[in-house]
């Protein structure tokens, strides 16, 4: 399980549980890594749980960190909110070493957070969780009318799209003109 610590300096990783005596072969002690989000709160996560993330798994398999090195160098994910990273870490821990079921009841239910969660999961390349999240997003509009779908997913009308496109072109034109004027000024 993960332990959450305020700041890297106060990190005090819990000892991994020891293998039961009855086990036939001695278990290799599990290695742990540390991640933090925008809020700098460090989460201690086992390598097994992190295997869900193709991104982190790729990083740790290339590093070969010792426990101390891992502790001293938590992976920074500054683009992910702390509470979202917490949700992701919790999910990874709950599904550590287990095949993920077709319907996941452990998926975070907060619809307001779903957008940030989807982006984080996509960034961290957690395939199974991403599938669940995308199902959840699809479920948001299940049985809704077209106008309800427009409202929920914030889909602009053709007229709004055209206006936005015009505006973007205008802005790009202005920026280009500004750059040309600046370049001419520099030349003088």
């Amino acid at each position, binding site marked *: 399980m993960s332990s959450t610590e305020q700041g890297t300096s106060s990190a005090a990783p819990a000892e991994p549980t020891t293998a039961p005596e009855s086990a036939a072969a001695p278990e290799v002690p599990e290695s742990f890594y540390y991640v933090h989000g925008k809020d700098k709160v460090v989460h201690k996560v086992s390598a097994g749980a992190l295997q869900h993330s193709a991104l982190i798994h790729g990083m740790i398999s290339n590093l070969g960190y010792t426990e101390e090195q891992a502790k001293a160098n938590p992976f920074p994910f500054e683009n992910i909110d702390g509470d979202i990273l917490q949700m992701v870490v919790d999910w990874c821990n709950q599904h550590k070493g287990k095949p993920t079921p077709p319907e996941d009841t452990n998926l975070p239910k907060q619809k307001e957070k779903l957008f940030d969660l989807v982006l984080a999961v996509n960034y961290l390349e957690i395939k199974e969780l991403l599938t669940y999240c995308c199902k959840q997003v699809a479920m948001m509009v299940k049985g809704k009318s077209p106008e309800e779908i427009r409202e929920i997913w*914030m889909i602009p009308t053709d007229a709004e799209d055209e206006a936005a496109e015009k505006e973007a072109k205008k802005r790009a034109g202005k920026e280009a003109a500004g750059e040309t004027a600046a370049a001419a000024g520099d030349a003088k």
Partner: protein
Amino acid sequence: MEEPPRNPKFGLLKCPFALREEVIGNMDFMDAFHFSTLSKRSKQMVRKARYQIDFIKFRFEENIKNDRIEVKIKNNDWLKISMSDSNDPPVRDPTMIDGLKLANLIDEPSDDYRKKLSAHILSIFHFKSTHVHLERNIEHLDDLFLWDIRKQFDCVEVCLSRCDDISPEDLQLVLNNLVSKSYLLEFELNDSSYKYQKPLKYCESLDVRGSCQWLDPENILQRNPQMKDLNLEDLPGEQVNNLLKQWINGEGIGLESMGFEISWYNGIDYPDNVIFDGIDTMETKLTEEQANRMIVIWRHRGRTVDIQRKTDGRFATVHLCHSGCYVWMWHTKFFRNIMQIRSVPKIKKTVVKR
């Protein structure tokens, strides 16, 4: 007063494209359809997401009010969309989704709602198999809205009722102007002297039931070398014999099976001496168990023999019984099927010189 709970928002368009694709792929058919009607961009998104659907069938029923589109959606459920003629009063089948209402959601001009809706559905979803089924003689068949959208199908079915018939012109339109891998045809032609002799360019499976008088079986295998399965009902015995000889003489190189079923009321029978006239037959190499497995309508009272092609020595098994004559060519699929059975016949491939 308490405000009603508001729908949570999700800025789908701010997501990376791959994510939008995944979300759209997880939507239900009707939700994805509704979403596609919101804007040009949303329509494009559904199209690019390559939303896969197994099967769609455009059904033109005996009664025009029952015309519909059938779509096989997720979990093997079927969705029916009413495509009742636009000039009809709005008496619509309540068990179906009203196609007119769906078409009204699509922001495109069209004088025929059925055409608009069909074009939209076919353009945004990706169907593995697209079928068309005609059950009535459609006036001005050449002007049917569907042909403006699509002329290529996986299966074309023309199954007219006994009181309806079809003209040679309409038959040619179905067989020549449309492209289909498979045809299921059951109708009477209104011109008994007409014989269809052209090739069916892309047809791999032809199933003609009821009357097949309109079809000229002479050299049919030569005309259609791509044919895999040929089923002709109530074909006179002499013509069955002729078709067996066409194959023995090297035509129908890709043929996998032929079936000549007899309907009980037509008084046709297939005596051995007519069907195998001039054909060398040999005792079948199939065991009873294998025959039972391979030949679904295998009858103990029937006769099962093997025949061999003169050009490459390939074998075929012919089963003749009171319900018809059935032929299975020994091709890869055939072997794969009999290999599943424990005892496999010892097959020695021999090349017979002409």
